[in-house]
């Protein structure tokens, strides 16, 4: 005979009656920041999981609880602050500053002209050189960027996509100059061109040749640079463009599968490259939704890699990722409050099991961060790592009814998007039909409208405003740096062996026109002949053409 509610306590029905009888706060939403409805309470009734099948053990399939058996008991995540501005010499100084303050890996931000494949003296680069990152035109700049930093001992991340193969070649060339064996070079090149078409919009070539370059890099790294991650499949920018958590999750993983399929089409064995694929996610403000997102991402990736793509090596199943706190969540109003937002976001990333983390500086809604602001951001990670105790136990929130429900819900929404993308003919076809772009624009507009109706409160923006105080100290980029960099790239072109540079460029052009050549070797040869990044991109533009989107809003 079933137990009565009295014997079980009030039971769900009893609680619900009590809950319904009470008033609720009015005017505010109870959904997640992405619009996922939340119940007031979750209980065992809401969680339909088989522990071994759906959660499992850290370091074991399907990796929901983490990719390593020891997680942060073995090693704290890599604290990796993204930095870059001005010329290579300025950024080199910032790198050394960060290493001196306990940072454990480097992460390079490039300026807009570099991201778009233009040298600093190109007319389109005017006013943009060194503004949002460091200007790198040739191997000479890369030599300065890493001067005095032993590349065999640090791992370096480079946020570069369109010209990723060229920047990787510069890095390899510097490593060779330092006498570091290629097998010891470690780090990550972003290279994720699909999310550029979807969200960040820093592209050069059309999708076809862009995908070929990505596969060339993956193939070459698998053979020559075993410790390099040739692609960092990125949801960060998708989220920054205004997507929901589910869109970030779904579009990113779909991009990942598209790279896997492109490599399989090239004839590569899945286990020869999949262990080196890595990911990059955003850490936004909706605490539990973010943690659920990371856990769902690991589970989906593992299952698809094993079951759909037939990967046999367990390292091909596990998803490692970097996380950055949400730039889009920072406010220009009362900027010090951003320290608190960033701390909470960083905590979500850690509880979600990230492998490395960048915490934004509180002044970044205003300008590039100052040194003091960057140090505070790094300190935020150090406090989480050493003072809060959250690192002592693996996946400490696993088993929470709410979190497990949300993990499964995000997973379900991701699979819905996978089906929609497949129905449109795959990731590239969907991009060409503006599908992902439109979904993101809708979500971003919906959120903005909720903020403006004050259904969502942003502290200091639509509630608790104050008369803004004196502006805080911000980082200024000296306009003279642009002129210096322009002179520098011209000097490099004049000082090199002209015949060798021309020959290297001709070979690159020739190999690009054929589809049976891996372009990494000719790019590396051109880099070593001091052919500039812009010259290489121009050569490839001649062969492949460029890309323009039809914008939707």
């Amino acid at each position, binding site marked *: 005979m079933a137990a009565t509610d009295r014997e079980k306590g009030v039971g769900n029905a009893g609680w619900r009656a009590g809950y319904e009888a009470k008033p609720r706060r009015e005017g505010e939403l109870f959904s997640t920041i992405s619009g996922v409805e939340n119940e007031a309470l979750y209980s065992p009734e809401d969680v339909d999981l088989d522990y071994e099948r759906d959660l499992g053990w850290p370091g074991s399939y399907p990796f929901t609880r983490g990719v390593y058996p020891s997680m942060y008991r073995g090693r704290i995540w890599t604290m990796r602050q993204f930095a870059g501005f001005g010329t290579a010499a300025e950024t080199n100084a910032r790198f050394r500053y960060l290493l001196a303050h306990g940072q454990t890996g480097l992460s390079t931000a490039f300026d*807009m*002209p570099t*991201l*778009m494949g*233009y040298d600093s003296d190109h007319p*389109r*680069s*005017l*006013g*943009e050189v060194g*503004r*949002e990152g460091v200007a790198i035109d040739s191997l000479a700049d890369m030599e300065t960027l890493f001067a005095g930093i032993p590349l065999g001992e640090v791992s370096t991340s480079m946020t570069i996509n369109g010209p990723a193969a060229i920047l990787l070649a510069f890095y390899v060339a510097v490593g060779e100059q330092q006498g570091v064996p290629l097998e010891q070079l470690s780090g990550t090149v972003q290279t994720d061109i699909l999310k*550029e078409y979807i969200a*960040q*919009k*820093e592209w050069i070539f059309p999708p076809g040749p862009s995908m070929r370059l990505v596969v060339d890099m993956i193939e070459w790294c698998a053979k020559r640079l075993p410790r390099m991650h040739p692609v960092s499949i990125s949801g960060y920018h998708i989220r*920054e*463009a*205004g997507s929901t958590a589910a869109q970030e999750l779904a579009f990113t993983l779909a991009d990942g599968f598209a790279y896997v399929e492109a490599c399989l089409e090239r004839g590569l064995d899945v286990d020869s490259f999949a262990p080196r694929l890595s990911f990059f996610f955003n850490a936004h403000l909706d605490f539990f939704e973010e943690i659920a997102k990371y856990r769902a991402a690991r589970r989906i990736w593992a299952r698809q890699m094993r079951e759909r793509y037939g990967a046999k090596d367990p390292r091909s199943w596990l998803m490692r990722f970097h996380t950055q706190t949400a730039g*889009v969540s*920072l*406010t*220009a*109003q009362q900027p010090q409050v951003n320290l608190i937002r960033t701390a909470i976001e960083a905590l979500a990333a850690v509880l979600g099991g990230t492998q490395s983390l960048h915490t934004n500086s509180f002044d970044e*809604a*205003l*300008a*590039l961060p100052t040194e003091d602001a960057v140090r505070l951001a790094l300190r935020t990670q150090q406090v989480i790592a050493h003072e809060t105790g959250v690192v002592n136990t693996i996946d400490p929130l696993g088993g929470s009814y709410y979190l497990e429900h949300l993990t499964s819900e995000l997973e379900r929404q991701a699979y819905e998007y996978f089906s929609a993308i497949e129905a449109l003919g795959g990731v590239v076809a969907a991009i060409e039909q503006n599908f992902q772009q439109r979904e993101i*624009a809708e979500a*971003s*507009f919906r959120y*903005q409208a909720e903020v*403006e109706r004050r259904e969502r409160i*942003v502290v200091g*923006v*639509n509630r608790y405003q104050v008369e803004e105080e004196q*502006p805080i100290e*911000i980082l200024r*980029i000296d306009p003279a740096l642009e002129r210096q960099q322009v002179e520098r790239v011209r000097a490099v072109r004049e000082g090199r062996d002209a015949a060798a540079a021309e020959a290297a460029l001709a070979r690159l052009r020739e190999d690009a026109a054929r589809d049976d050549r891996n372009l990494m070797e000719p790019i590396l040869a051109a880099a070593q002949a001091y052919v500039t990044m812009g010259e290489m991109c121009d050569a490839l533009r001649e062969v492949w053409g460029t890309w*323009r*989107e*039809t*914008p*939707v*809003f």
Partner: protein
Amino acid sequence: MAGKIRVVVAKPGLDGHDRGAKIIARALRDAGMEVIYTGLHQTPEQIVETAIQEDADAVGISILSGAHMTLVPRILELLRENGVEDVVVVVGGTIPEDDAVALRKLGVAGVFGPGAPTGEIVDFVRGAVPAA
């Protein structure tokens, strides 16, 4: 009857951050204006040409790359060179306060930073464009 206000929303330079531009474009359209969005990576010349061809009442420039002190003055100069004196120029993005002051002096009607409500921008454009 007065015609719809025509606004060109433009993304100059190499910066691909278009979340704000798209939100503003849509808010202006929803407020009954005719909105032409240029898309990304436009040169000042392309933006001014679009403004002229579209007979724009206002040009909204969205820029988050830090290149505003190069690109915005160039757009203003080209507008003047082409005899387009009456178009209202509004700038949005991460613009430090002293740069905003300088841009207003050069002839920018309004500068809106992060967190500015779309309603405020819509009202500003309505107020700044002379009634037809």
